[in-house]
């Protein structure tokens, strides 16, 4: 597809749902409802809060309750077309699927997933990206359409029946004939992109290293620095934890809503049980759990580690605890140089 058609094509997708994408709001790039397609920012900076927030919202109402009991509240669910999702974040949605779509299915997540179209968009690695190490730098499933920006033209992958319907909307924008030259351009782009990664780590060895380093003093070093602020969880595209609380309306009736909002295993009260016993009172234990899920395995059924190499923890942690520094320290068995 020629770049000149891009905006008009996205405009035509409104028929399939409300357009969401990376847009700047008060100076901050975030996945949000798109007011006009020319405000979508695709090449360059990535939103700090990942696309998970559109499926697993920071805060929403699960139920409304009154004297007759609890009624599910699905009002947060909306038909969406999400534009500009990079490969690593498409992978993150596939990981979240394993948690939320596993029986019994989480109806809130599942309904939003079923009602969303994913329009993927290629990216070039930033300074902190290490998705090549985690095997999430390319994506073969999990999108309806995927645009690879090759400068002169977009190479468009069609990933679903819905994606195909979208193409048919503006069939004349797309050229079905892929020439040998186009393929060469694409291969060249891939090879150039591969060379752009500045950071990497040996992800494949991490499960074993994690298992064998359970008692390592390295954890105490990081625990001494960690502020338990939970920012790593908020920005991580695969952190799925949440907590639930009831909020009463201001009225004399027992009416209100059951809210669900993001939580972090870094918070001290995360593993607190009735009577005051805390199974993870020590900061080192909380860090260990987080990194076990990212680099060893998150839950029995899902098997694989959850890290998708987006580098958000690298950019966000105020005291430099992130997948790269932890992996390096555990691998070399020495703490990072100050």
């Amino acid at each position, binding site marked *: 597809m020629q770049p000149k058609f891009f905006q008009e094509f996205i405009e035509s997708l409104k028929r399939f749902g409300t357009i969401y994408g990376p847009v700047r709001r008060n100076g901050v790039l975030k996945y949000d409802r798109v007011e006009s397609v020319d405000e979508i920012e695709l090449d360059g900076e990535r939103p700090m809060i990942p696309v998970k927030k559109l499926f697993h919202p920071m805060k929403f109402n699960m139920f409304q309750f009154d004297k007759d009991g*609890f009624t599910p509240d699905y009002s947060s669910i*909306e038909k969406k077309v999400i534009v500009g999702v990079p490969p690593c974040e498409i992978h993150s949605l596939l990981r979240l699927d394993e948690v*939320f779509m596993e029986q*019994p299915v989480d*109806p809130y997540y599942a309904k939003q997933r079923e009602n969303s179209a994913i329009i993927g968009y290629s990216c070039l690695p930033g300074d902190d990206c290490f998705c090549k190490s985690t095997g999430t730098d390319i994506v073969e499933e999990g999108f309806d359409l995927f645009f690879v920006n090759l400068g002169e033209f977009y190479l468009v992958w069609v990933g679903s029946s819905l994606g195909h319907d979208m193409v048919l909307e503006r069939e004349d924008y797309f050229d079905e004939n892929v020439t040998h030259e186009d393929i060469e351009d694409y291969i060249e782009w891939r090879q150039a992109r591969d060379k752009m990664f500045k950071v990497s780590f040996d992800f494949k060895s991490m499960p074993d290293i994690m298992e064998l380093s*359970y008692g390592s003093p390295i954890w105490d070093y990081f625990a001494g620095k960690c502020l338990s602020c939970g920012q790593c969880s908020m920005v991580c595209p695969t952190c799925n934890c949440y907590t*639930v609380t*009831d909020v009463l309306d201001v009225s004399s009736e027992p009416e209100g809503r059951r809210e669900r909002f993001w939580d972090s295993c870094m918070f001290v009260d995360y593993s607190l049980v009735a*009577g005051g016993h805390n199974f993870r009172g020590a900061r080192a234990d909380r860090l260990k759990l987080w990194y076990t899920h990212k680099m060893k395995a998150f839950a029995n059924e899902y098997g694989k580690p959850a890290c998708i190499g987006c580098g958000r923890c690298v950019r966000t942690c105020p005291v430099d605890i992130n997948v790269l520094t932890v992996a390096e320290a555990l691998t070399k068995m020495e703490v990072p140089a100050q």
Partner: protein
Amino acid sequence: MTVCNHEDNNPFQPEAARIVRQHDLIKDHRFFQVRFVDMKRAMSFTYNPGQFVMLSIPGVGEAPFSISSTPSRPGILEMGIRRTGKLTEALFTKRDNDIIYMRGPYGNGFNLDQMRNKDIIIVAGGLGVIPLRSILYYVLDNRDQFGRLFFLYGARTPEEMLFRTEFFELKERHDIECLYTVDKATSEWSEDVGVVTKLFAKLPEIDPHQTNAVICGPPVMYKYVIQELLKLELPKNQIQMTLERRMKCGVGKCGHCALDHIYTCIDGPVFTYWDTLHFRELI
């Protein structure tokens, strides 16, 4: 564009349940008998000993509670609840016939297949007897499916012994050996005095491979009870224990009961001693 569909199965949907009867067990511990309001649901509701339910009070919140009754006595669900937080405080204001909300059952429960035709040792400390009461009565109600039954229970004082009358009535039965102890006795206490591990000396000879043990108690108790069971040469995977975590969802989504790569709410809350060696944060 809003999409609405109310005809689905929402696993988080709390269902109305009636408190059929409730009474104090000991100070701050109350016994609740509960039944789903929907009669069909109430009669078809079944579970494994060792499973738990999520109880809700609108506006106060939701929390997990272990089931204390046995599925061999269907219709009514029993729980023993300690007053310890916001939700239990609100539960204690409820009276007979009041409505609360419930969903479940959740978790794996005890591995009954492994226990069948074996001798069973139940070891309870304090509040830990609440979930074990389920397996205790399950074995008694299906007496021909199990070998000998030993029930060891330790409480702090005679006044703090839960289900005291009930458990002393069990002593009259000949198909169960009941051994009770308290840390501090009063003058009328006829049973043992000391920690629960002291009771192991009173057990007859057992065949470790033909024996299964189930344990529940305060975190500090496990280590010492397990030492005793290992002295009897019980295989590590024939020692089952039920553990406590504060689940928010009960179905493996919210992450609160995660440890290593397992979720207590779906992979547990019953684990074997071998599991705890494997997943180091369990107890």
